[in-house]
C-alpha cells in the first residue's frame, strides 16, 4: 500500500501524461514533415479510398436494383445482408490470405503483402455495409423516384443515375460510413498486408504496433492524426457534394 501511494505521487496521473503528451506529439508529428509519416498517411488514404470507391461502384447500382426489385425471399436476402455486415475483419483477412497465398487459387498473381491485397480485403469488408445501407434507403424511398423516372421515359440506367442524384446526401453518408470502417480497421490489412515497413504499413497497423511496443503516446498521437485526416476527407467530400449538379 505504501509503495503504491508513493508511486502515485511520483508519477501523477500517468493517463493524463499519456493523453496530453500524445496530443502534443500529434502536433509535433504533423509539423515534423516526417516523410515516413506522410507515406503512411497517403498509403492509408489510398487503400481505404480505393476500397470504398471500388465497393461503391458495385454496391450503389446493385443495392438500388435490389431495393427496387420485388422477388421471393427478398426478406431473407436482406437479413443475410445485414448479418454479413458482422463478418469480423480478421476472418475476411484470413480468407483473402488463403486465396492470395502462394498456394491459393490466385497465388500466381503475387499480390499477398502488397497494398493491392489490402485494397481487396477492405473492399470485401465494406461491401456488406455499403450494400446494406444503400438497400435500406432505396427499399424505403426509392420507388417514388423510380416511378417518376420511368414515367418520364428513363431507361434502367438512367433511373439508377436519377436515384443516385436524388439520394446523394444519403449515399455520401453511406460512403463516409464505409470509409470510416475501412480506415479505422486493422484486422484485415494487418493479415494480408503484413504491416511491412515502407510497403504496407498504414496508420492503424502502425498504431497497433506502437501499442504493442508500449508507446502509448505515439499511438494516441497517430490516432489523433487519423481523426484529423478523416475530418479533412469529410469536409472535402461534402464541399464537393454541395457543388454537384
Amino acid at each position, binding site marked *: 500500500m505504501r509503495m503504491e501511494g508513493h508511486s502515485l505521487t511520483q508519477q501523477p496521473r500517468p493517463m493524463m501524461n499519456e493523453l496530453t503528451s500524445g496530443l502534443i506529439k500529434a502536433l509535433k508529428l504533423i509539423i515534423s514533415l516526417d516523410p515516413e509519416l506522410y507515406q503512411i498517411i497517403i498509403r492509408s488514404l489510398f487503400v481505404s479510398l480505393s476500397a470504398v470507391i471500388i465497393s461503391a461502384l458495385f454496391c450503389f447500382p446493385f443495392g438500388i436494383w435490389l431495393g427496387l426489385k420485388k422477388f421471393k425471399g427478398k426478406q431473407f436476402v436482406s437479413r443475410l445482408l445485414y448479418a454479413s455486415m458482422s463478418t469480423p475483419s480478421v476472418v475476411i483477412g484470413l480468407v483473402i490470405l488463403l486465396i492470395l497465398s502462394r498456394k491459393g487459387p490466385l497465388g500466381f498473381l503475387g499480390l499477398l503483402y502488397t497494398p493491392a491485397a489490402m485494397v481487396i480485403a477492405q473492399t470485401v469488408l465494406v461491401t456488406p455495409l455499403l450494400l446494406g445501407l444503400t438497400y435500406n434507403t432505396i427499399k424505403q424511398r426509392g420507388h417514388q423516384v423510380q416511378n417518376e423516372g420511368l414515367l418520364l421515359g428513363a431507361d434502367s440506367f438512367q433511373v439508377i443515375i436519377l436515384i443516385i442524384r*436524388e439520394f446523394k446526401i444519403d449515399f455520401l453518408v453511406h460512403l463516409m460510413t464505409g470509409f470510416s470502417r475501412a480506415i479505422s480497421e486493422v484486422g484485415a490489412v494487418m493479415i494480408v498486408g503484413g504491416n511491412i515497413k515502407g510497403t504496407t504499413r498504414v496508420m492503424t497497423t502502425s498504431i497497433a504496433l506502437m501499442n504493442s511496443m508500449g508507446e502509448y503516446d505515439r499511438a494516441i498521437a497517430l490516432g489523433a492524426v487519423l481523426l484529423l485526416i478523416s475530418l479533412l476527407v469529410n469536409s472535402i467530400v461534402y464541399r464537393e457534394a454541395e457543388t454537384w449538379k
Partner: protein
Amino acid sequence: MEVRIQKLLKKYNQKTILDILDMHFKEGTIIGLLGDNGAGKSTLLKIISGIEKDYEGQILYNGYPLKDCHKQRIGMVSQKPYLFKRSVFENIEYPLKIRKIEKKKRKEIVDGYLREMNLEAIKGQRADTLSGGEAQKVALARALAAAPKLLLLDETTANIHEEAACAIETQLKSYHEQMGCTIIFVTHNLTQAERFCDECVWIK
C-alpha cells in the same frame, strides 16, 4: 394513342378495387374520369401508365400490349407528383435531357412552358420548396415536355387557382389539338369535367 382495357381485375389484399370488363379510350379524345374517393381512379391511371404491374387482365395500346416504344409516349402527372430535388428549370428539362435533345433546343422548350404556366419568377427555385399549386404546374409542364401521345392527369388542377386552372385547360386543349393525343383527366370538379372533357367515365 388508343387504349383498350379488357377484363381488368385489381385487388389489394383480397379487396377488389377495380373490376372492368371492357373499357375503351378512343384516340384523340379527352376523357374525364370521375368517381368517389377510393373508387380506384388513381389505381387505374397507374395501371394504364405501366408503373403498376400487379393486376389481372389486359391493356392494349393501339391494339398491342405495352411496349417500350409506347412507354416513351405516355406521360402522367400523378396525384402526389414527386419533383426532383433540383431547380424548377432542371425538373422540366429532365425528360428532354434523357431523350438527348441538345441544350439550346431544351432551353427553348423549357422556357416556353415556364412562360405559358407563369412560372418564370420561380424557375431557379428548388422544386422541393414550391407551394402546392406551383408544384402541380411544374409537374404538368414536365410531363408535357416529353410530348406524350397519351397524357394521364390525376387531379392535376386540384390545388391550382380557378383562373389559372382555366388557363391551363386552354393550353391543354391547344396541345391536344396540335398533337392529336388522348388525355385521361381525373377530377372531382364536375363543372370542370363538363367544360373540358369530350366524354366522361364514372367508375364504381
